[in-house]
C-alpha cells in the first residue's frame, strides 16, 4: 500500500464523521439563523437579518446575556480568588493538602445532573441548608431557588462548587512550577507572606491565569444543564442564561431560526471575549519568553 493511500484511508473514518455531524450542522447553523422557520420543512422562509434584528430588541436575550456576564465577573473572580488561595495553602504539602488533592475533583467528575439534583435538595425550602438556618434561630429562611432575589446567586455558587477543583488544580500546578530558588531569593530580599505572594508568585502565574480565564469564559457561556435543571431560568426569568433561552425558543416554542441566531450570538460573545483576553495577556509582564 502506497503512502498516499495509507494516509487517505487512515484519515477517512474520522473525516467522514466529522464532516457530516460537525461541519455540516455548523454551516447549516449559519444558514438557519437567516430563516423564519418553525420546523416544518415546507414553511422555511428566508428573512435575512430579521432574527438578528429581533435579537437586538429582545429584552429577555439581553437579560440572559447579562446573567452570563454577571456569573463570569462576580462568580469568576470568586472562583479565581479562592482557588488561588487554596492552591497557595496547599504548597507546603502535608496530609491535609494530600487529602484535599485526592478529593477536589469529585464534583467535576460526577454528572452535572446529579450535582443539580443534589443542590436542589440542599437549597429546598425544607432542605439541608434551611433546616440548619432554622436550627440557628432564623424563623423564615428564603426559599433560595424559588426566590427571584437569590436564584441566580444560588445557581452561580453551585457552579463555583462544581468547577472549583479544576481551577485549584490548575493554580496548584502553576505554583508548583515556580522554582524553589525564586522563593528563597524572595525570602532573602525580606519579602514574605502575602507580600511575597503579590510580588513574586502572582505575576509568575501569568500563563496559568490566561488559561484559567479562557476556560472560565467558555464554561460560563456554556452553562445550561445546571440552570435548566435547578430553576429552568426562573422564577420569572431571574436566572435565565443564554443557552436555556435558546433551548426554550427551539424546543418549546419551535422558533428554530431564532434559536440558531441566539446560538450564533453566543459564539460571537465567546470569540470577542477570547480575543479580548488574548490582547490583555499578550505580553508577559515578567518578561519571560514562553
Amino acid at each position: 500500500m502506497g503512502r498516499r493511500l495509507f494516509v487517505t484511508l487512515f484519515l477517512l473514518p474520522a473525516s467522514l464523521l466529522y464532516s457530516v455531524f460537525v461541519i455540516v450542522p455548523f454551516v447549516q447553523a449559519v444558514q438557519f439563523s437567516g430563516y423564519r422557520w418553525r420546523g416544518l420543512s415546507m414553511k422555511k422562509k428566508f428573512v435575512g437579518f430579521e432574527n438578528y434584528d429581533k435579537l437586538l430588541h429582545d429584552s429577555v436575550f439581553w437579560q440572559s446575556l447579562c446573567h452570563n456576564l454577571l456569573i463570569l465577573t462576580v462568580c469568576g473572580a470568586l472562583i479565581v480568588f479562592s482557588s488561588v488561595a487554596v492552591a497557595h495553602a496547599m504548597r507546603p504539602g502535608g496530609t491535609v493538602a494530600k487529602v484535599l488533592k485526592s478529593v477536589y475533583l469529585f464534583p467535576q467528575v460526577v454528572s452535572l445532573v446529579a450535582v443539580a439534583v443534589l443542590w436542589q435538595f440542599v437549597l429546598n425550602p425544607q432542605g439541608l441548608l434551611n433546616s440548619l438556618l432554622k436550627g440557628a434561630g432564623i424563623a423564615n429562611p428564603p426559599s433560595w431557588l424559588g426566590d427571584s432575589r437569590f436564584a441566580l446567586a444560588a445557581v452561580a455558587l453551585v457552579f463555583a462548587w462544581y468547577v472549583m477543583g479544576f481551577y485549584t488544580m490548575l493554580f496548584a500546578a502553576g505554583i508548583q512550577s515556580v522554582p524553589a530558588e525564586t522563593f528563597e531569593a524572595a525570602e532573602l530580599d525580606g519579602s514574605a507572606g502575602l507580600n511575597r505572594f503579590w510580588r513574586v508568585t502572582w505575576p509568575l502565574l501569568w500563563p496559568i491565569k490566561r488559561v484559567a480565564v479562557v476556560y472560565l469564559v467558555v464554561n460560563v457561556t456554556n452553562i445550561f444543564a445546571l440552570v435548566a435543571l435547578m430553576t429552568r431560568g426562573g422564577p420569572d426569568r431571574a436566572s435565565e442564561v443564554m443557552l436555556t433561552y435558546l433551548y426554550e425558543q427551539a424546543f418549546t416554542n419551535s422558533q428554530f431560526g431564532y434559536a440558531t441566531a441566539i446560538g450564533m450570538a453566543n459564539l460571537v460573545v465567546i470569540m470577542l471575549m477570547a480575543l479580548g483576553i488574548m490582547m490583555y495577556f499578550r505580553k508577559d509582564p515578567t518578561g519571560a519568553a514562553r
Partner: protein
Amino acid sequence: MKKLGIGVFLSVFIGVVVLPFGWVLWSSLKTGEKILGAPWELPSDPQWQNFANAWQKAGIGTSFINSLLVTLASLIILVPISAMAAYVFAKYPFKGSKLIQSVFMGQMMVPHFLVIVPLFFLLRDFHMLDSLWGLTVVYVAYSLSFTIFVLGGFFHALPNELMEAALLDGCTHSSTFWKVMLPLAKPGLLVVAIFVGIGLWNEYSLALVIVPSPEKKTLPLGIANLTMTQQYQSDWGALFAGLVIVMAPVLIVYWLFRDKIHEAMLAGAVKG
C-alpha cells in the same frame, strides 16, 4: 500556629467538597419523608429497597444499561479512528495536513448548543433521532477533536526510529501502526478513553435533544426525569439511590486512575 491555621482552612474545603456526597449516600438509605423531614438525621433503619425501587420501578436499571452501551460503543469506535488520524497527523505530514488538523480542532471552540438545532434535523432526516446509535455516532463525532489532540501528543513523543526500523523490516505502513506504534501508545489510549468515557457517561444536553423516549434514556436523563415524576409520588428514597447509582461508577474509576486523570487534564489545559 500558622500550620494549624492552614490545616483548618484546607479542612473546611475538604468538608465543602465531601459533605454533599456523604449526605447523598446516607440519604439514599432513608425513607422518602425523612430525607426532607429530617435531613441531618443519620439513617437508623437502612432502606436497602430504595436501590431496588430505583433500579426496577423507576427504570434506572434500563437507563444504566443504555448509558453503559452508549459509552462503551462510543469508545470502541472513537479510540481507533482517532488514533489513526492522530498518527497520520503526527508521523505523515503532507501538504495541507496542518490545515486539516486545525479544522479538526475547531470543534473544541464551538459550543454544542450552536449546532443543536441543525443536528436535530440532520438526525431526523437520517432516521437516527431517538436511537442509541444516533446518540453514539454524535458522541463519537463530538469527541474526535479532543481525542485526536491528546493522542497526537502521545504519537509525537514516540521516536521516529522505531517506525523507520519496522518499515525497513518489511512492515507495511498500516501494520507498523497496528503492531508497533499503537501498542506503544497504550498508556495514552487508556487515559483518553477514561477521560472521554467519564464525560460521555455524564453527558446531558445532547442526549436531552437526541433521545426523547423513556426506554432509551441514558442515566443523566433518567435521573432528571425521576426528579420530575417522583414529585407526585414523593419517593425521594429512590431518587437518592439513583443519584448514588449515577455517581458511584465515575467516582470509583476516578479514584483508581486519579493521578493519570490529573496529568491528562493539566496537559490538555495548559498546552491547549
